[in-house]
């Protein structure tokens, strides 16, 4: 009898902890893991400096594009910025910056201070367009090819390894 009780108690704890574990890893609406190898969604963001729109079709002329989501208020974005500057020297890939939930003035100051790696600078002031890409924290970057298929998604700041990976792919 005592054995059964003990087993039940252990199972209850195991159950609760597993649910916590699942809860931590559950798919949220914003998960983009399933976007890899799929075409990117239709989107429409305006340029950082003018009111025209930039859309999916504007990406077709690039062999590879890295879409980078950033903001002036985001500390890790500062960390990854020098890497983006280095990546901007790559001829075979264009970098599109999406300035996420930011103030235009502060975004400009940020780029003036640290340099501008972006071939195209756009903004998503209310963050709604970024949701289509499944962005839930920044920085995040998405690497896509000419067919607009997502090759890889980088959550968090780009690292030296990510940089080498990207260079390898776009060679």
């Amino acid at each position, binding site marked *: 009898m005592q054995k059964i009780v003990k087993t039940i108690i252990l199972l209850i*704890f195991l159950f609760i902890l597993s*649910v*916590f574990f*699942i*809860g*931590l890893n*559950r798919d949220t609406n914003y998960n983009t893991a399933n976007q890899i190898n799929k075409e990117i969604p239709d989107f429409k963001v305006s340029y950082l400096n003018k009111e025209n729109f930039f859309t999916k079709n504007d990406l077709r002329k690039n062999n590879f594009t890295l879409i980078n989501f950033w903001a002036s208020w985001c*500390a890790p974005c*500062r960390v990854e910025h020098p890497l983006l500057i280095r990546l901007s020297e790559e001829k075979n890939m264009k970098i599109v910056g999406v300035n996420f939930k930011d103030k235009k003035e502060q975004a400009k100051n940020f780029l003036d201070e*640290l340099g501008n790696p972006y071939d195209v600078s756009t903004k998503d002031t209310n963050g709604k367009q970024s949701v289509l890409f499944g962005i839930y924290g920044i920085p995040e970057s998405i690497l896509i090819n000419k067919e607009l298929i997502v090759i890889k998604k980088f959550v968090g700041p780009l690292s030296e390894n990510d940089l080498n990976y990207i260079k390898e792919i776009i060679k």
Partner: protein
Amino acid sequence: MISNFGNLLLFASIVLSLSIIYLSNKNLKLNGNQITKHIFQLSLIQSTTVIICFFTLIAAFIVSDFSLITVYQNSHSMKPIFYKITGTWGNHEGSLMLWVIILSIFSFLFLIYNKNHPKKFRLLTLIIQNILIIGFLFFILLNSNPFSPLSPIPKEGLGLNPILQDPALAIHPPLLYIGFVGSSIYFSAAIASLISNYSEKNFASSIKNWILISWSFQTLGILVGSIWAYYELGWGGFWFWDPVENASLLPWFAMTALFHSIIVFEKRNLFYFWVIILCLMTFILSVTGTFLVRSGILNSVHTFASDPTRGIYILSFLSLMIFGSVFLLFKKYKTENYNLNQNSKETFVLVNNWFMMFYLVTVLLGTIYPIFTDALSQNKISVGPPFYNAIIFPVVVIFLIFMSIGPNASWIKNKFDNIKLYFSILLGAILINLMIILFFKNFSILSNFIIISALFLILSSIKDFVVSKKKNNLDLGRIISHGSFGFLVLFIGLNYIFSIEKDYNMKIGEIKKFDNYSIEFKNLELKDFTNYQAVVGEFEIFNGKDRNILKPEIRIYSNPKTLTYEASIKTSFIKDHYLTMSNIDRSDYYNIKFQEKPLMIWIWLSVIMVVIGGLLRFFKNAKNS
């Protein structure tokens, strides 16, 4: 530089903990009841190192050293010095440092204050406590390092969330942490007691004061959090059944149960395993709370930036603690025979524990149920106040009755005196309640039952005071705590019934009238302060007798750019007038929310008195030992 120094100190603390474990283990094998001096010294050095490490972080905040990510993200050079300092623990990384400080200081103090207990028990407690310390230090170093460097160094920081720039919130985390991190020491002691078979009543005396002290601080911490929520969040309420509030309440229930049952254990040598289970449960619930809050698995007003890897780390730690202690408990568990008399004090303490467990399970279920439905069925639901109010409040009535009569039962005996006296007290409570109904002309069955039972507890406590003073066996701590708890429930009940709330859209010069009140919007001013601008409204509240001027504010903080609404509160002994104002886009109208909240100050005072009762008991115990 500061980053390297901080990391070095963190690393040194790990090495010190390992050395303490190694030395204690070696010392265990020696004969005699003496603990070598080196262990005391190392333990002292370790606490000092952790404290220096924390002060290093404070220094980085004071001089606004933005080469540290934590400082950059949570401070700003223009912030008042006071909030620079308190910003140190207003974030995830810094607050974990506070964890480790309390773990190590408690570990050291436990070692030096328990000289009368067996060596094996003391050393094992120290070892377990240091394993916990190492666990948290690794968590800090690998995942939540406050000394992570940032390069290039930004010129300015992002600032601390303005609603956290508040004196109450400066002391809220330290108080709460002494409470629930302090419970680690009786977690360690319980495990040590199981391993070393130290199950006699003396074990109770080694931990009872630690329980009281952590319980007192936990209660104060919860109180300060509530006061802050009351005047800062602008809802006019003080308890929202928010998951994070619940997380602080769960260990509180377990502690409360624990320091009642430990009295029985100490007096009668009963309930040993139950006491052990409660000791383990209290700290496990504290860590569970931390997991729920910091992993981001729950949404709540406490917006610590969340990060799933943190969750995994705390969850692994939690699983180890749970399975480790459960296995140990199963191994050592022996069935205890309780031969309790129905009306003995032991039974009443057990009844208290049942109630505490009932509350604990209710709040735990309500808090984690949304996670379960989400993880298992993808259904997003939230459990709100109606659930808790419906389940908890009716039970409070019975609980208070037991709380009134329990303390007067005698040990062992099945005898209960003074039944007639209790009936007359109950009659008195009902009469006072009737007067309240007649006077205020307000009636609802449940709240009247609650008021009657609260009055019953208050009157019984007064009776206890008078009777025991005559007999010269006054237990002041208990009488104050129980009586004040009665007052607390009474004031909450009255506050709930007699609160008034009105919502209006007004512009300058307008007057709104209701019942015998009038609210006049007299003026609007723009003011500049060092770190924010404020739009200050001026309202006159007239209730037929008194005129009160209330000045709610809309504040525009510059770093980070945030809008906050500051309630204006006029507190008097009888009631609070509470006014918040918010702007309406593109119009000169403002939305006004006026509330009259009776007896607020008495609610806070009752909680303080409950704590004073606990502290009185603590000092009495300390004096006796």
